């Protein structure tokens, strides 16, 4: 994170500027402005269907915004395609894991490392035999808590392990921001706790935008919280402020079992 360290703490790494998106008459993103600052975890919470995953798709370039801009490290990303944004250091995980199931864990992280510049057209060199790549991949696999699982096929990983692999795959690219869509979704209590610990370890190193339903995890991890309801940010503040805010309680926390 040499680059990340260069940006002084508190400066916005990722900034969304009046984003809009509608599917027909349904406004899914309604004038969303928020930023993720270096060193912080910014949690985005909101009920089902609030538009959280849609917003992530707009950030990562999978969906084109109707209007508004996305800035990343001072650069306007709005007109860049998803793969170009990824190359600039936008790391992400998906609400439903998106992984290459036939590769081994090691191969998958090697693939991730080898695609930093968009992938190679070398038809002969086998990246699996590249000692430096292997070593680096093993490092990130360990960092994501998957040491010893290097040769397991991704399809044979447990659900929680797949989530960890998504993280390893993202971390290997030394991202300048991590956008995580419900990294604890579908996990058991134990797996969930492990993921919280892992994110806690990574905190400070990587700025994160964390979409999460589990309020305990949010309160443990986040510095700031934004609440999204029907595509609108109705509140942004520190964890303590969220706890006290009446509007948030009624709009969101009230109907959550937390």
């Amino acid at each position: 994170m040499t680059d990340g360290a260069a940006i002084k703490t508190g400066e916005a790494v990722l900034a969304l500027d009046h984003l809009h998106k509608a599917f027909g008459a349904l406004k899914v993103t309604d004038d969303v402005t928020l930023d993720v600052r270096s060193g912080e975890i910014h949690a985005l919470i909101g009920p089902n269907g609030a538009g959280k995953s849609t917003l992530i798709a707009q950030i990562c370039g999978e969906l084109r915004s109707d209007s508004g801009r996305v800035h990343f490290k001072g650069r306007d990303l709005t007109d860049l395609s998803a793969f170009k944004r990824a190359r600039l250091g936008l790391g992400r995980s998906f609400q439903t894991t998106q992984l290459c199931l036939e590769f081994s864990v090691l191969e998958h992280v090697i693939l991730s490392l080898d695609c930093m510049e968009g992938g190679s057209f070398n038809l002969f060199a086998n990246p699996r035999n590249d000692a430096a790549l292997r070593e680096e991949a093993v490092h990130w696999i360990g960092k994501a808590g998957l040491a010893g699982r290097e040769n397991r096929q991704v399809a044979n990983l447990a659900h929680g392990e797949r989530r960890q692999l998504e993280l390893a795959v993202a971390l290997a690219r030394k991202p300048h921001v991590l956008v995580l869509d419900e990294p604890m979704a579908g996990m058991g209590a134990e797996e969930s706790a492990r993921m919280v610990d892992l994110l806690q370890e990574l905190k400070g190193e990587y700025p994160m935008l964390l979409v999460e339903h589990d309020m305990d995890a949010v309160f443990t991890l986040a510095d700031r919280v934004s609440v999204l309801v029907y595509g609108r940010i109705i509140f942004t503040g520190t964890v303590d402020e969220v706890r006290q805010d009446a509007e948030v309680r009624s709009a969101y926390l009230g109907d959550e079992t937390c």
Partner: protein
Amino acid sequence: MSKFDRFTLTGIVMLVLLIIAPFVVAQTGWHGGLPLLTRIVIYALAVVSLDLIIGYGALVSFGHAMFFSVGGYVVAVLAYHTNMGDTIFGWEGTNSALVLWPLALLACALLGLVIGYLALKTRGVQFIMITLAFAQMVYFILVSLQFYGGDDGLMMDMRNTMPGIDLDDPFAFYYLALGLLVLWVLFCRFIVNSRFGMVFQGLRQSERRAVNLGVNPLPFRLAAFVISAVGTGLAGVLWANYAEFVTPDMATWAKSGEFMAIVTLGGLGTLLGPIAGAAAFIGLEQILTIWTEHWMIVMGPILVLIALFGQQGMLGRFLKGGRHD
């Protein structure tokens, strides 16, 4: 890495079988034996190429016969003009394989580049349909070439010439084709295991993941499509020389379908499986045509049964097994 071992083992067994097969059939005194083996090897070249994109990239091309036909026609047409004593755009022509074959492959590469670029804008069933549509266009163009025999096709007076190898000698021709098949399979094997191949296969397994790792899908898929077109074109070049005859039938959808059926029959995404598939398909075709003219009535159900019950084809389970813990 037992997968590697199984591949190598299977490859060596197949190679040994294909090397000794001509001697075995010669012993039986059956004259159809060597031509049959030659057809198997030529088809194998085409289906290995098709497997590269279907099996590893899920790019289901239903139009690969167009490259087969274009490879064949380029060679036959240029040889035709040369033998007529014409000049081709001021060039007096040649019958040398070392010139004609690369030209034919270049034509296939260019055609693959253009059609691949257009077809890869689509996915799934649409991709199948658009490749089919382009192949039909090529078919109708070939039929309309009255000067080159139209429907009836074009005879070659003789095979191309190659220094040091007498292509008119059926043995030499067979072993040349086999040698090219070996080189092509090795090349495809390198591709599959390469940095390029990893990205290409990653795109099939999860395009969303690959894109979010920074991969632009089109150039990777297009490169693989072009390589596949060239391999299939080489099969067409060999076919033209083997049969000394090219017809628009080389570009029919039935031919494309045969290629797809053979790949599935042998085992998708294994490179070697389709070679076994070619042997089984062409062997069965030979036996069934002796028996009945409507051999497809028997072959069809066999293919359906294999598709239903042997989901991995003849060699898929073996070649893809024994991997990872």
